[in-house]
């Protein structure tokens, strides 16, 4: 793969403070599953990676975190961009990936091939960053999800456009593995929300 100028451009202009701010959104998001937040830091990521997903990569990935890219992302300059800006290596093995990025419309058939952690070390699992079309706090377009579990007082309703059809089934399987399992961050352009493995998703 040749490095194009796309791969070298972008990145945070103030990495220390921008990655801190993105991390705090992710921390608050994991602590309050389903909370929709908007990223303001410009990651300058190449298409088809979304701005929120790009900011997450810059914030969390480095040479200690092998990254898996879905087919659509793998054939773009996204891989070279992540490699150049974070030092992360790309892996084709889902089970080795600490982070996996999936472009909008990618339809995962199973979460089981990703690292799920072990019963002794359930933290050694992949975090999946899944791009969807849009996230809404209020009813309107999209599929309604009713979330409950740690971090949520009673329940929280969100509406997601472009959620893969298989998601509900895969999430139920993932929940059944607890404490093992993957954690998911849904991104839509500059928006994001987190679904840690503890979250129950009802329709």
């Amino acid at each position, binding site marked *: 793969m040749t490095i194009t100028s796309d791969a070298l451009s972008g990145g945070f202009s103030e990495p220390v403070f921008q990655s801190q701010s993105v*991390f*705090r959104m992710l921390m608050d998001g994991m602590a*309050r599953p389903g909370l929709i937040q908007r990223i303001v830091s410009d990651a300058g990521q190449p298409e088809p990676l979304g701005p929120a997903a790009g900011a997450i990569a810059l*914030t969390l990935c480095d040479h200690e975190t092998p990254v898996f890219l879905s087919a659509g992302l793998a054939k773009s300059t996204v891989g070279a961009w992540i490699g150049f800006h974070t030092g992360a290596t790309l892996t084709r093995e889902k089970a080795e990936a600490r982070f996996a990025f999936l472009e909008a419309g990618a339809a995962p058939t199973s979460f089981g091939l990703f690292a799920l952690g072990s019963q002794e070390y359930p*933290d050694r699992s992949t975090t999946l960053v899944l791009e969807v079309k849009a996230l809404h706090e209020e009813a309107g377009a999209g599929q309604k999800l009713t979330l409950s579990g740690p971090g*949520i*007082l009673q329940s929280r309703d969100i509406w997601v456009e472009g959620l893969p059809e298989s998601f509900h089934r895969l999430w139920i399987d993932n929940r059944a593995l607890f404490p093992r399992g993957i*954690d998911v961050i849904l991104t839509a352009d500059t928006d994001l929300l987190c679904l840690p493995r*503890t979250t129950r998703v009802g329709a």
Partner: protein
Amino acid sequence: MTELASYNFAYLDEQTKRMIRRAILKAIAIPGYQVPFASREMPMPYGWGTGGVQVTAAIIGPEDVLKVIDQGADDTTNAVSIRAFFQKVADVAVTTHTADATIIQTRHRIPERKLSEGQVLVYQVPIPEPLRFLEPRETETRKMHALEEYGLMHVKLYEDIARHGRISTTYAYPVKVAGRYVMDPSPTPKFDNPKMHMSEALQLFGAGREKRIYAVPPHTDVVSLDFEDHPFEIQRFEQSCALCAAHGVYLDEVVLDDKGGRMFVCSDTDNCEDRREHGHSGEMLAPSKEAAE
């Protein structure tokens, strides 16, 4: 002479922060589970809050307002020292007011005032493993957590009852988080355990020497272990605070003389000051009344 480098914002380098941040996210996703992390040497000694300091350094930003307490008080020397450290390396705003803080780093107490949404409570943890005193080997305790095998802990608590007629653990009292992991709440008195349950704040725990981070998300069940015939109870003080007359708060005993004279005052100094500012006064602070009599 080698030239000393200047230090990054919040002391830690960015690579270390990322590593800690990843551990924090996994810790939140698996409430009560201890995530191993590559704890760094810090410029303060192990056992003095290096875990809490690393967690705070990894999460803190220029917008944050930091409060640091030790034994409930903002003015204990170690709290002063850690607060000064963050003022120096991160130039953040600091406060003693619980309500104004976005991040509260603590050793041994949870503030009396109810924490709110958006606040983060960072605990300094000496021994993160609740089963450690029953089983010294990490290889064994890890298995016990994996299998959710907590019988030993119940046996220990029950032995207490057999010997002393009650559970004699008064601090670092084990809790079960979100119905799965048994967790050490750090050496806070069990008086504070109920505050962890369904708290609105995010609770993060850092153990530097033992290299573990764990978390309790907001609105999460935190249940103190007990038995039907010996339900969990917190400490109750007969006295009220001698300075602010508060009841139902944790009190420190202050020895006044060598003849057994003593008084009880709030452990949470901020809460006590706040109450006094609002006109509450305890027996030691009512000279005008005494003078009138």
